[in-house]
């Protein structure tokens, strides 16, 4: 069902054994949910991976390997530390890592599946499409792409707090963008930490990768955490969400 889009970039699949398993039976191939690769004892590399260094700017995003994610939320703390720095005696320092400020957020399910949710840098950016604020002299709406990183940014002065972007993300994509509870202006867009994503750097399990290149752009791109958890519960445990025991 996930191959019907002919525009999807072909993927190179590398078979790769789960480091903890010696059993050949557990050689399982990769499957892909939209822009997020779900690798089962596997690893996925897009064909366009870092082919061309001379042609900035380049799309890049945080790829989650659900096989390795343990739901520890270290990514949240690293994200919050970098993106919410503090000023101490005139010096700017990383924060203490309050996960509630993070742009990446892990959602936990029963049976055990953990789904980190982070902006997946949709090529067709429905969030920007939804922004009703007219373009400024640089041809930017209130929500726009950073010319260097291509990450989604918000001009808070021009933003009218209508919440359209968050709604578009929530209903059409992963729900990474969240309106601020007070101002209703968008928050939690991934900044890619100036090219060195801290969530990737500090994930103790190597579950996150900073993928560069032209990322796939199809209508299965960026499923919600609920949908992903549903897929994985079936795949890992043979279960719909819910049901430790048939009653």
């Amino acid at each position, binding site marked *: 069902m996930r191959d019907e889009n002919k525009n999807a970039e072909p993927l190179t699949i590398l078979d790769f054994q789960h480091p*903890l398993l010696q059993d050949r039976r557990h050689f399982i191939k990769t499957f892909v949910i939209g822009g997020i690769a779900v690798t089962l004892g596997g690893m996925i590399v897009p064909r366009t991976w870092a082919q061309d260094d001379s042609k900035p700017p380049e799309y890049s995003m945080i790829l989650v390997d659900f096989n390795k994610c*343990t739901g520890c*939320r270290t990514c949240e703390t690293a994200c919050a530390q970098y993106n919410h720095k503090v000023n101490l005696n005139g010096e700017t320092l990383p924060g203490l890592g309050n996960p509630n400020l993070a742009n990446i957020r892990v959602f936990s399910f029963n049976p*055990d599946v953990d789904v980190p949710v982070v902006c997946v840098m949709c090529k067709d950016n429905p969030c920007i499409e939804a922004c009703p604020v007219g373009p400024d002299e640089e041809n930017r709406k209130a929500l726009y792409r950073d010319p260097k990183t291509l990450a989604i940014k918000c001009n808070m002065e021009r933003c009218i707090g209508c919440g359209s972007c968050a709604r578009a993300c929530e209903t059409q994509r992963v729900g990474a963008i969240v309106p601020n509870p007070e101002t209703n202006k968008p928050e939690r867009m991934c900044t890619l930490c100036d090219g060195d994503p801290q969530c990737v750097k500090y994930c103790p399990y190597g579950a996150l990768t900073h993928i560069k290149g032209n990322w796939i752009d199809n209508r299965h791109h960026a499923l919600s955490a609920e949908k992903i958890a549903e897929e994985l519960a079936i795949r890992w445990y043979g279960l719909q969400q819910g049901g430790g025991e048939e009653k």
Partner: protein
Amino acid sequence: MKKISGYHGVVLNVNLSSGEIYKKEIDPKDLRDYIGGRGLGIKLLWDALLEPGMDPLSPDNPLFFMPGPFSGFPFPSASRTCVVTKSPVTSPKKSKYKYASTIAYSNMGGFFGPEIRFAGYDGMMIQGKADHPVYLYVHDDQVEIRDATKFWGMGTDAFDRAFTDELGDRRFQTCYIGPAGENRVPFACIINTAARAAGRAGTGCVMGSKNLKAVAVRGSGMPDVAQHKEFLTLLEESRQGFQGTEDTLDWRRYGTGSALIGASDNGVQAVKNYREGTFEHIDKIGGFAARRAVWQRDFACYVCPLGCKKSGRAPLDPYAGMVHDGPEYETGTMLGANLLIENMSGMMKAIWHGDDLGLDIISAGNVIGFLMEAYEKKHIDRQFLDGIDLKWGSVDGTIQMLKKIAYQEGVGRLAARGVHLLAEKIGQNSHKYAIHCKGHALAAWNCHASPTQSLCYATSNRGACHLNGHSARTQNRTALIDSTGVCLFARSGYRENGISDIMEAISKRNWTSDEYKMAGERIFNLEKLFNYREGFRREDDVVADRFFEEPLTIGPKKGAVLDRDAFEKRMDGYYEDRGWDIKTTRPSQKRLKTLGLA
């Protein structure tokens, strides 16, 4: 004394009888001297219960949920919550108080403790008793006691999902009781994330006695720290310190499940109601088998690089498709080797039932092992067991017993009281194989071949405890770590004095590492004072006759048995070490003065 950094300085107080909810400031001296978690919990309990002998199930018994000063900060494995209350499980041999019991503390992993801190509290104190089932809702400053009537009776697995729907927000952290806690089984536990448990010491029973089904917490804040730069340096250092070490990789590979085979091979596992130390079929239920056939994925608590929690799917009929976490060492031994259960899938099913019912699986496996032995020895018959054919290795019999206990039906009513009272009822010298200390069931480590293990059990302040520590020194260290919010499993991942250095960066007490060690000793001694006041004496610091009288008959430690004189001598040495009176175990005035307790 002025406010200490690294703390909010307040505990959320909730009275379920009156509906009163308020923030109570904690004396900064208490924060300083008792750290948090287990230590601060016992101090607040001590202050709340001015007289000994209170009924642990009375509304006045406070139930504490205590994170520590590490909780909420991203230091590796700072994920624990310590639940503290007066124990509904333990009792001394003699006391003038009808309801004499020890303190109870029980640690759980997960995400709950950090969330309490995000919500703006250093702990929660719940007193009183609601007149109908309720749950406590905490969203930062918004705290409400809400109706939980529709949830009463639900197993923890189904409730976990239903509660998430009720709250409408997956970012809430919750903990709750199952039918066992509702029905006040003394060894009922508190569960979170449908599998992690504050298993020991009967905390779920106290929660049930308050008609409190669940607590839900979500917060957005965080306390400040004393030394920001040092904090960052130590954070980087400790994160790196865990990466790629053999220790870390071992936890990830097998969790505590690796000990199933290790302990059996060393003759120190609880097998056949502690009769033996080695299980011949351990390979069928051990970590290797689980990794190969059961475990699907690894999971971790908050900011933990160890990932020792394993979730999987039972492969064998008739239990195939059963999805749950484990086995880990304790669950795999107590509902596996100790009952001679060798069917991995059946064992997982039993573990699921134990968790779903909200039972402490250690105590439950212990009491079922006792019944299996009594049944085999014909000290009880099938009628006594309400018709259950409780043979060694019976998965179905075990599951039926778990249900009987949780619902307090028939034989379950008796079994729920624990092995010591069962033995009293059965007589016929069955107390010799009733494996408890102070009424609290022993855990999955056997004593025959491990004299220090017997000391660990006998001297624990919550009744038999396998994590207590094998000497005064290690016990003090454990008390300190349990008070910080850091997981005991992570202790060796921190460098020497790492924990106390981080404490200084967070709170700046200007303490040396020795003063931190002394805090551990202070906490342990205050617990001891509590128990002493209730009437616990040296005669209560014992382990079952079995370990002295019945040598192991199989395995590498065949013939091993404890020597009574050596045991008593070891205990003498221990009390001397502690500065306690050898006859009564009363802590000396001198030692208490040094610790600031007198």
